[in-house]
């Protein structure tokens, strides 16, 4: 396996334009002859499918949800970044690029991030034209707010439902193409394997979740837009259905998996209430614009928050990071929350919580302004906790939220399998070791609207693809393997439920490969995952049949893949003997408790090649070269 990043030469600011001028085009008549498979219908998948169809390609789009509109991008609350500089506060493409590279703790590829910052401005234009109702000022122009890790206001938003509105924009563009019969949509359909013919991705195997029918679908290229894998922790802010299956199966067919241990633990989520907990709920980072985070100075202080006077409160982010304060980046804010709770100063049941307090903002701006900015978030908090954030501070705690790791891709967003692309959260590309707020929506839409539709043409224009149909032996073989696996799961007559295995795996990872990691814990977790995986195949109980709507079976397939993937995650975390961004190895920290990078040894992307289940994967390194920014110890003080 060879990693060729295909980054264009020349000055950073001119690379994308030059690349677009140089890549091959497919003529309009020939576009009509190609079929492209897009898996996933979130921001990246829906925008790619719609844009490809507009160009003339035939598209088949698959999602496991009952409608393309339900993809988990819809849950993004806070906003989307763009270097418009509408606020005249000194923002620029370069600054957005710089903030993102620095925020990612210098573990992302410069060329990709610069391109992302350039494209950010086009995204806003596109979405406004589609009718996305962004927040506006009284003069009718677009409003902005600020987000963590930056000192400008560049975030566009639609109340607390930015992801929903952007996704509906993409979904509507996709719907238009479905109506024009340029896209065939397959809802309630889950991709269970990738078909590779002569080293090229040529199709997928899909299970219809209603009938249980397993079928093969062929195409000239396959695009995976299947999101992230935070649900490997069981409890996360992701939707219940989010999973690693599509990218994991692609990995097993030859796609390198990059930086799997880079998982973002978001600082502001509603704490766990009990064993019944099925998922965690995020409270938008935008709340940190006006909310102040604190814990009592004294350990075990059980007074109600409003009874604790100011001089007995520790506004620890403001104390430690005076210039960024409560808007410190996510990895840092999460780690510090864990630290104060581990010291015994956490609040709420079990001491796993810190306060996010709006008292001062309400006094300064009035209740109405706060309600206008965060009303729906406050209501959501109150519905879940039965506590009113206007009267008492919110309690929050970090939770798994986003995964920076994903399939390795080159500058064209192609994986190490020819003709297989990964876009959005499913790839590893732009966020390094930590993603800044309001950057996921930007990346998903940049990939789907403005990058992939160009770069995929470069591939299709150059390859000679044989005509083949799904009767080809490679399709038949892969389909038979998928059916065997489904049958094996249904037949498993063990004693333990799928859910029990998932919870156990999640706990193991949260304790050992979560907010802080150490060699001993990672080794132990890796060993225990192997044992758990063997136990799963020996002792799991699924029930029902494969030829039916069977949600336990869906879950079982996903957990089986998580059990293989989790081992890679720990392996990656163990090998990276440094701390960077979200990846905090206890052995490698500064005296102040900040992440201590080792650029000389680990200034690379770790791309892993699959070697077999339970077999040590093969490491390939893509060195990261920083020609424009100079990696430094991140400082937010």
């Amino acid at each position, binding site marked *: 396996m060879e990693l060729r990043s295909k980054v264009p030469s020349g000055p950073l600011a001119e690379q994308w334009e030059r690349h677009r001028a140089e890549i091959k085009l497919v003529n309009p008549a020939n576009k009509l002859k190609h079929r492209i498979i897009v898996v996933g219908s979130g921001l990246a998948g829906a925008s790619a499918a719609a844009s490809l169809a507009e160009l003339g390609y035939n598209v088949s789009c698959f999602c496991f*949800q*009952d*409608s393309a*509109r*339900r993809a*988990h991008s*819809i*849950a993004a609350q806070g906003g989307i970044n763009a270097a418009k500089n509408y606020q005249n506060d000194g923002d620029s493409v370069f600054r957005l690029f710089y903030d993102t590279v620095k925020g990612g703790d210098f573990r992302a590829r410069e060329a990709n991030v610069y391109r992302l910052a350039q494209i950010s401005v*086009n995204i806003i*234009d*596109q979405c*406004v*034209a*589609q*009718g996305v*109702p*962004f*927040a*506006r*000022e*009284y*003069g*009718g122009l*677009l409003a902005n707010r600020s987000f963590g890790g930056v000192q400008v206001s560049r975030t566009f938003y*639609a*109340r607390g*439902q930015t*992801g*929903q*509105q952007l996704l509906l924009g993409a*979904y*509507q*563009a996709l*719907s238009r193409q*479905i*109506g024009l019969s340029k896209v065939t*949509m397959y*809802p309630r359909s889950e991709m269970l394997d990738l078909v590779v013919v002569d080293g090229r991705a040529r199709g997928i195997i899909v299970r219809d979740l*209603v009938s249980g029918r397993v079928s093969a679908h062929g195409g000239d290229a396959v695009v995976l837009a299947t999101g992230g894998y935070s649900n490997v922790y069981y409890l996360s802010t992701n*939707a*219940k*259905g989010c999973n690693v299956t599509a990218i994991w199966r692609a990995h097993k067919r030859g796609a390198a998996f990059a930086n799997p241990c880079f998982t973002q633990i978001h600082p502001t989520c509603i704490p766990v*209430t*009990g064993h*019944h*907990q*099925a998922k965690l*709920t995020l409270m938008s980072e935008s709340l940190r614009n006006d909310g102040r985070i604190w814990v009592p100075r004294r350990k075990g202080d059980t007074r109600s928050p409003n009874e604790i006077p100011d001089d007995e409160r520790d506004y620890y982010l403001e104390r430690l990071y005076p210039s960024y304060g409560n808007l410190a980046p996510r990895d840092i804010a999460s780690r510090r929350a864990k630290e104060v709770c581990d010291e015994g100063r956490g609040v709420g049941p079990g001491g796993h919580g810190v306060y996010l307090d709006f008292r001062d903002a309400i006094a300064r701006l009035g209740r109405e302004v706060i309600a206008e900015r965060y009303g729906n978030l406050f*209501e*959501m908090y109150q*519905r*879940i906790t039965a506590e009113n954030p206007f009267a008492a501070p919110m309690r929050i705690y970090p939770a798994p939220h986003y995964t920076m790791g994903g399939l390795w891709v080159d500058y064209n967003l192609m994986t190490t399998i020819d003709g297989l692309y990964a876009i959005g959260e499913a790839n590893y590309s732009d966020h390094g070791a930590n993603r800044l707020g309001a950057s996921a929506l930007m990346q998903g839409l940049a990939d789907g*609207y*403005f990058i992939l539709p160009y770069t995929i043409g470069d591939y299709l224009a150059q390859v000679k693809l044989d005509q083949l149909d799904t009767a080809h032996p490679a399709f038949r073989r892969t389909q038979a393997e998928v059916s065997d696996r489904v049958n094996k799961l249904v037949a498993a007559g063990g004693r333990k439920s799928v*859910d029990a295995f998932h919870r156990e795996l999640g706990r193991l990872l949260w304790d050992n490969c979560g907010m802080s990691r150490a060699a001993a814990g990672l080794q132990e977790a890796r060993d225990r995952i192997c044992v758990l995986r063997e136990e799963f195949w020996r002792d799991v*109980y699924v*029930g029902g049949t494969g030829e*039916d*709507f069977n949600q*336990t079976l869906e879950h079982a397939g996903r957990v089986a893949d998580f059990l293989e993937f989790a081992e890679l995650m720990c392996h990656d975390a163990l090998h990276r003997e440094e701390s960077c961004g979200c990846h905090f190895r206890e052995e490698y920290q500064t005296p102040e408790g900040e992440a201590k990078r080792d650029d000389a040894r680990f200034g690379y992307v770790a791309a892993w090649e699959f070697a077999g289940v339970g077999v040590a994967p093969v490491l390939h390194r893509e060195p990261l070269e920083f020609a424009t920014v100079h990696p430094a110890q991140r400082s937010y003080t």
Partner: protein
Amino acid sequence: MKVTLHVWRQAGPAAPGRFVRYDMTDVSPDMSFLEMLDVLNQQLIARREEPIAFDHDCREGICGACGMVINGRPHGPQRATTACQLHMRTFPDGAELWIEPWRARAFPLIKDLVVDRGALDRIVQAGGFITVRTGSAPEANAIPVPKRDADLAMDAAACIGCGACVAACPNASAMLFVAAKVSHLGLLPQGQPERSTRVANLVAQMDAEGFGACTNHGECMAACPKEISIDFIARLNRDYIKAAISHEG
């Protein structure tokens, strides 16, 4: 707390359905309604019985996947709350709950509490969009939108497409869903060129899908987890009539 559930069980579209009673003990008031069903399903799996099928995904009240009628009310008794955000503390200890799927001709049943809401997608495909090719958009601030219009458009755009409005309506009408889309796009300057064709196409598709007509019951607004106002239905009717008499539709 304890609750008694009567859950609609139906193996498939052609199979007969019936209510099955389940008695639950040790229910935590902090559980969401769906977490309570998760716990029940784990108990059913442990007893080798088939778990209850129900749609759900984000569990944050935004994806629109979940939906069930609880004691006769779509998404249950709490105002502006989806089933996934409903918490057991809403109910008294010992409550008796009847749980059913959305019932409408345009939403064929798949299994237990799961129905096919593809009709709503097909309505959007018929014209619930603004035609803009990727890359052809003008600079975003070239189109000022009065804040009041943008806010009102956002009120309509908040629809999550769950179908509660259809389930609540005695006529199983999708008027609130269609009105929300027509209003969201029709309130914005970007949506003007296709305003007449859009409303005509959406209404035609709504009728073709077998949804009923609106007779102003207002149940849809009461059931809507996003509190979308029936004022938008008035807006839809006005746009529809205008399109019809101007022959632009």
